[in-house]
């Protein structure tokens, strides 16, 4: 149990997916203009990450390791993710229309989010068991959501700030992210 709590805290705060591991920077910069969409993106990502972690673990353990095909890892994981996202999209559309409308365009975008493939690769690298992998996938998603929502909050305020002309948009976002990363470094001694 303590083990799982450590995995959770480490993925959310200490080794935050976006600010410390640099995964999922594209949506972090692209979808962090307003808080609302940022929350939807975070939720969709968390959902897909948790599922990916479970399926990737099973695929890795029973198909790749079972048949000694580890060199196909990258290819098979990306296929797993692409088909999973497609399935999730169809499933949500059928079951819950409001949720589908809320997640809408974010779902297909997630396929090319490197944070998802990152989860699959990391859980193999760290040799997590099945339960740990699921917790890891979920907490990585929570960490991503935390970072993107904080960023969206700051950027909404930034709209009113007087930023030098050439630093508007991406450059100032990067610099703010740098400050956030500095703040998150304060957690590094926690675990």
């Amino acid at each position, binding site marked *: 149990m303590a083990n799982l709590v450590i995995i959770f805290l480490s993925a959310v705060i200490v080794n935050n997916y976006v600010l410390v591991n640099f995964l999922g920077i594209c949506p972090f910069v692209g979808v962090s203009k307003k808080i609302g969409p940022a929350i939807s993106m975070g939720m969709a990502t968390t959902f897909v990450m948790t599922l990916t972690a479970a399926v990737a673990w099973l695929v890795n353990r029973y198909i790749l390791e079972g048949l000694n095909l580890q060199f196909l*890892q990258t290819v098979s994981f990306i296929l797993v993710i692409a088909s999973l996202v497609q399935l999730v999209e169809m499933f949500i559309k059928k079951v819950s229309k409001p949720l589908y409308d809320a997640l809408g365009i974010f779902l297909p975008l997630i396929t090319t989010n490197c944070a998802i493939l990152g989860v699959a690769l990391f859980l193999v690298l760290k040799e997590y068991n099945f339960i740990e992998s699921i917790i890891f996938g979920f907490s990585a998603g929570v960490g991503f959501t935390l970072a993107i929502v904080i960023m969206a909050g700051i950027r909404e305020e930034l709209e009113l700030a007087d930023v030098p002309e050439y630093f508007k948009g991406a450059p100032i976002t*990067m610099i703010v992210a740098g400050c956030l990363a500095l703040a998150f470094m304060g957690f590094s001694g926690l675990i």
Partner: protein
Amino acid sequence: MASKTSHPKEFLKGLWDENPVLRMLLGLCPTLAVTNSAINGFSMGLAVIFTLVMSSAIISLARNIIPKEVRIPTFIIVIATFVTIADKMLAAHVPDISKALGPFVPLIVVNCIILGRQEAFASKNPVGRSVIDALGMSIGFTITLTILGSIRELLGVGTIFAVQIMPLSFEPWMVMVLQPGAFLTLGLMIGISNWLNARRAK
């Protein structure tokens, strides 16, 4: 539009006008993650050059036989194949660098630069032109990563490609080789490139 430009122009646009990192903001994850030293940034760039050029060539050759509906999965499989080759080659020949780059080599698969070039260019243009475009883009990427890595390494540990540059009395700014340094340096680089571009346009 793209098919009318000359070959040298096709190559040069990747270096500056459409530089994938500074102007298009693509492939930011590896850009930020592996540039804690010049050599890491440079090796990452080499892996991307190999993957992008090879997949552009293959996709461009097969562009007329790939059905439109399944083009994205096809691109991804081709890209993933070359990424696996690059990953295994790095692990076999330069194990230290392969370790430092970690999961970011397999992550080249989802690098938007590569998929983006297949979708926007290689699937519509003949082989020669696609390879030139791929070379330009990936070399632009490599140069940017090497510069970013050099700045961070210079300020963070006082060296570039492990050669001592700063006087020994220089107190290294540790933060530059840690995560915040990546964001701050890239932010400044994009800002400066915006400024240079605006000046050139005048």
